[in-house]
């Protein structure tokens, strides 16, 4: 799946927050978890947007080929 660098950037941040769970004192886990969730949300939104945009670009080309 080809996604933009921005999408991977947010996925990377989400993973970093989750990796940091191990050294984070349990009292502050909510910070890691909320930031991982927020970052993951942006990753998913960007990924969906990019996939839909690519499909939109592909469709007219297919019609032209049909003719």
């Amino acid at each position: 799946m080809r996604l933009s660098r921005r999408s991977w950037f947010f996925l990377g941040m989400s993973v970093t927050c989750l990796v940091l769970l191990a050294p984070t004192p349990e009292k502050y886990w909510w910070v890691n978890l909320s930031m991982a969730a927020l970052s993951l949300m942006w990753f998913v939104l960007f990924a969906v947007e990019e996939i839909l945009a690519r499909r939109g670009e592909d469709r007219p080309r297919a019609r032209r080929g049909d003719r």
Partner: protein
Amino acid sequence: MTITIALIVLVALSFDFFNGFHDAANSIATVVSTRVLTPRQAVAWAAFFNFAAFLIFGTKVADTISNVVHPGTLTNAGIFAALVGAILWDIVTWILGLPTSSSHALVGGLAGAAVATAGWETLVASEYQKIFVFIVLSPIVGILLAFTFMTGVFWLFHRYRKVEKLNRGFRRGQLVSAAAFSLGHGGNDAQKTMGVILALLIANGLLAKGSDVPLWVVLSAHAAIALGTLFGGWRIVHTMGSKITKLQPVGGMCAESAAATAIWGVTLAGIPVSTTHTIAGAIVGVGTTQRLSAVRWGVAGRVVWAWVLTIPGAFVMAWIAYLPFKGLVR
């Protein structure tokens, strides 16, 4: 003994002054670069809120700082060396125009002096663990919150056509966000100096272990950081305000609001973080709303290098600063 303590308190307050001087750029860079305030007005604005922070935040960060080393192990000479190490590191990075963290320098300095005094076992691992985790987490929180705020603002106002009126609103909003950030900066950073003075007073038996920070310490620490901000350093304004990414008033407002939210949260939780790196992260977050290439990653990379090197750098400087005192009686 009293003169020694007074001198070390003075050095601690000088560190606080220099912290304000060094970090003034963080509070005002975005307001100055978007031309909402002139540099002179901006430093006065930030300094006022640096001082006013004592009315809002408690002293939890000060307690954390005073506990990074086992109580009683740091001598007066050790505390002095820690401060000298941190100040030297701040001066070197200021000359180089690097937006490093005075907080990390202090944490590194305390560790260096403590290790030189009584070895590695004097460091309280759980406190350092908490600090190290948030060294990494705080810029990430800044990036994510700033990106979210900026996207939210775009989403709310994208149909609004009166751009001039909108920009005027964001300029006013930036005054509020800069004030909120300066409050957070004053709250978190002044408390680090309070923590050092608290440790000093406890080490000399002037306060019992677990005592609250005396009011004169709170007021003098806030006054010192506010004065430092007033005399602010200008080299870093350029790096923070325009080199990382080009900012508009809306971006400045979102970056400061995001950094302020993050810093208020950690200050209330008692965690010492770098205000420098939180706002640098927030500026990167605003840049990424355009596209990743809008962020000058070379400059951001320089910030990260300074970030990585600060604790070891200040550690070594404090360790060296302690050497002349080795073998001397407290």
